[in-house]
């Protein structure tokens, strides 16, 4: 019994409320982290917020003129990149989930003593700089390379060309490449939280499901997956959020038609030196992400997770 219940979700009612008895514990736990974020994140954020309503130029400097039109202008001009970012990030997140779940499941339930080894294989690619790895992808997916040739001869590329995710029988510099790159880059961000929540599920619940005539797939659908929801939610957030703001993959693996909002912000900030627009775009992005995430969390019934 002990082990089963230790894996059941926390009985909410037994969680202590800080209000009662004036327990200061949560505040002590929160204090350092919150202070840190206030100083090193919120303060700069306020500064960026003020930047977004400034006008001016590099030479004359920028003054706060409460020029909110920047937001509207930025949005109307760059909404395609916004939509594209969301679409790519969502696709990549879905792919990460589809690819990452079996691996997380494998590590959590089937790996036995190889668990740690598989875990480290998931995370170790980070130790090789992302740039080298992305360049390696370019080698792998190169137009004349074996992968593309194989895909072409299997007529896969005919299909993907028709779907518009690849062009001219190549993979690089197409949406497919960007989405694959995003998927690749953020896969560990999906696998780790998935693994940690799968690992907590008591195998006895699987047994109980099997005992009650659930085929393995049904057991998965009705028991494993619902119980891994915390991991699924955390994983999709850890994947989707950074992927939406990412620009590296679009930069290196995409062409001009695959640029994402991250690229725009980057370029506005560094190349065009239009700081207000860059800041405004950032805030629009953050707001959009926040809105989507909130809606998602509501929908998945996991408000408590966030």
């Amino acid at each position, binding site marked *: 019994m002990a082990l089963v219940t*230790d*894996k059941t*979700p926390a009985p909410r009612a*037994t*969680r*202590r*409320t800080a*209000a009662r008895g004036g327990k200061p514990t*949560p505040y002590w*736990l*929160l204090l350092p*982290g*919150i202070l*840190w*974020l*206030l100083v*090193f*994140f919120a303060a*700069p954020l306020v500064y*960026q917020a003020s930047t977004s309503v400034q006008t001016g130029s590099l030479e004359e400097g920028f003054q706060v003129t409460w020029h909110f039109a920047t937001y509207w202008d930025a949005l109307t001009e760059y909404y395609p990149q916004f939509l594209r970012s969301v679409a790519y990030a969502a696709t990549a997140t879905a792919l990460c989930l589809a690819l990452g779940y*079996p*691996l997380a*499941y494998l*590590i959590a339930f*089937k790996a*036995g*003593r190889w668990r*740690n*080894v598989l875990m480290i*294989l998931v995370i*170790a*690619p*980070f*130790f*090789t*700089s*992302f740039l*080298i*790895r*992305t*360049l390696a992808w370019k080698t*792998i997916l190169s137009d004349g390379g074996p992968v593309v040739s194989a895909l072409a001869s299997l007529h896969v590329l005919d299909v993907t060309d028709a779907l518009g995710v690849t062009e001219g029988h190549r993979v690089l510099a197409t949406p497919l490449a960007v989405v694959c790159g995003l998927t690749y880059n953020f896969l560990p*961000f999906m696998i*780790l*939280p998935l*693994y*940690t*929540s799968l690992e*907590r599920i008591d195998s006895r619940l699987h047994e109980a499901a099997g005992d009650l005539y659930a085929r393995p797939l049904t057991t998965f659908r009705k028991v494993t997956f619902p119980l891994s929801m*915390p*991991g699924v939610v*955390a994983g999709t957030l*850890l994947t989707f959020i950074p992927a939406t*703001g990412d*620009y590296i993959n679009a930069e290196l693996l995409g062409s001009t038609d695959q640029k994402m909002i991250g690229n725009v*912000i*980057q370029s506005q900030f560094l190349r065009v030196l239009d700081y207000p627009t860059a800041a405004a775009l950032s805030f629009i*992005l*953050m707001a959009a992400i926040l809105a989507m*995430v909130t809606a998602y969390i509501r929908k998945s019934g996991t408000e408590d997770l966030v």
Partner: protein
Amino acid sequence: MPALPARPAALSSRPVRWLRRNFVVLAGLATLAYLVLPNVIVTVFSFNKPNGRFNYEWQRFSTDAWTDPCGVADLCGSLSLSLQIAVWATVGATVLGTALAFALARYRFRARSSVSTLIFLPMAMPEVVMAASLATLFLNMGVTFGFWTILIAHITFCLSFVVTAVKARVMSMDPRLEQAAQDLYATPLQTFLRVTLPIAAPGIAAGALLSFALSFDDFIITNFNAGSTVTFPMFVWGSAQRGTPVQINVIGTAMFAIAVLCVLAGQLIGGRRKRS
């Protein structure tokens, strides 16, 4: 539960059944292959001997770069700097983030949702913007750019990842175990250290690993807050502009291999100890 060994029962089509039974294993391994495939290429090219500066085309096999991994000026210096920063950033972010995660997962308090939002935003903020605004902050504070500014920046952006990863784990933990600990005279701190922490360890480890990886691999935010300090990704990025030296592949491969070998060795030693 281990996969059942195949039994000589009358099977309609054995391969299909085998596939079905091992679907998870196969799919998982396929994903793993996808994850490490680029590293294979990196490894292969670490044995290349390019004629010019560019390590793109396979020329001929050579272990030159392996025998002299630090052969490129500043490479190993930047690597050690990156490792130091990654370690400290991981420690900092994990400590702060775990505390935050616990507070959020275990307690109800006022402003809980605002705190959640505050924790979420750094993940949603485009890197370049965060980088620039942090740089502005440091500038206004009159801090000299270097190790400490990089470290602070890294902790800041790793924090949210740790919180999210740890919280997922803590949420699904039975509070009765903590209650049992408290009942057995453990103070809240001891309860945390002796019970909560070990049980939440996989989540914390996941958060820490993410932090380490993120910190070790970060370029943009580091670049803005590094002053004239050069970290490994900055070095890689820089040299990529003019052609990466083979040594970078060597370092990348070696780091990968060291990580895997450490775990493997720990596994074997642990396994042996358990048996004896």
